[in-house]
């Protein structure tokens, strides 16, 4: 199966990290369902144009984190992602994005009041749109 991972060659982020982060979010967000058989290490490396060494490392890491499991002779599957992990992932992703936004505000000397005001306005606009 084809896994939609996009490698950015001009990014400062190491190749291995780009693949791991994207695969992880595909699993946790449920884009790749529980029980899905992932491509073999060599096949995936061919798709991504990287080496099997990198893909093996990613699979091993995600296995340790409980997101993947390997059945000898069959391949690597997506494990059950608990409700807790999903909530945790959501919180971390949002927190990280907000932290970046606050850092930007600090770097242009935007005050706390002003930032809160901008934040509330954006929330109102966006959530209004969503409805």
């Amino acid at each position, binding site marked *: 199966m084809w896994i939609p991972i996009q490698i950015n060659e001009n990014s400062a982020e190491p*190749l291995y990290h780009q693949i791991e982060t994207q695969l992880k979010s595909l699993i946790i967000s449920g884009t790749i369902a529980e029980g899905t058989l992932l491509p073999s290490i*060599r*096949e995936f490396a*061919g798709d991504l144009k990287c*080496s099997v060494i990198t893909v093996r490392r990613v699979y091993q890491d995600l296995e340790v984190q409980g997101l993947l499991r390997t059945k000898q002779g069959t391949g690597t599957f997506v494990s059950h992602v608990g409700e807790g992990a999903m909530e945790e992932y959501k919180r971390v992703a949002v927190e990280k994005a907000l932290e970046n936004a606050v850092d930007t505000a600090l770097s242009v000397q935007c005050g706390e009041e002003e930032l809160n005001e901008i934040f509330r306005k954006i929330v109102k606009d966006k959530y209004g749109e969503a409805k």
Partner: protein
Amino acid sequence: MAQQAIELRNVSKKRPNKVIGPLNLQIPQGYVTALVGQNGSGKSTLMNMLIQLTYPEEGEIRWFEEAHPDGLPLTLRQNIAYVPETSMAEENFWTPPEAAAFRRHWYPGWDQPFFEELMNRFEIPRKARLSKMSKGERRKFEIASALAARPQLLLLDEPSSGLDPFAWRTMLDTLRQYMDDTGATVLISTHIVEEVRRLADYIVLMHRGRLLGMTEKDSLFGAWNEVWVNAGSEEELLELTAELPGTLQAKLEAPGVGSFLARHFHRNEKRLQDMGVKVIKSRSLELEEILSLWMEGYHPDKD
């Protein structure tokens, strides 16, 4: 590191007008190692030594952790398949089934159903004599029969030369699948950078009979960047690049804009920011460019 399929220790080979070596190299089992380098850099001579078509004057070669100075034992040869740069003339007057029958005799692990499957997959004509085939068809036959022997070690000397893009993709897929099934080791010499990108795990670079080094392919990711910055004058640009380790080819591109190549730029980007220099743009160098720099003596892994 994994067990070695091949190991070279101080191997030298004298050719009429050049010397190959001394070569020190370890090829790990279960991986694809790409051998790259210009024409005449010694890649084919190295391959020939690995199948004992020629012998080094000095040094030692080990196969699966053992040296065989008195000749490769038959059982080991039966586990090595070799696709030479130019096909052997001995098989010229045979059709593919006839040549396969001959090879089957020498390779006890020969897998006839697999051979038939590959003949179909590669669309190799069955009735034509090998010498009457097009270069690409002959190449496909060579690759199919190398794999049908079910070897543990594949030595492929420019296997894709003459293949059309469709056959080329089929070859890459077939090799990958074979390695998945068997855990075999592949040493492939090639001039096609895209082949290295899609297939290789390790890269070995040869230049004028010497090994410039071996590296894990992905360690080359982001090894070099081309960077454009604001710079008032050439002096200013040179001052600035002197502050960064591993910069090359600094030049003024236009009034106020300078460019240079930087090794592991992302590690040093902050230093530029601290100096108050504005980076206009940066791009990662392509594998091809990284390899050319390496041939010029600029090793990608060193700072």
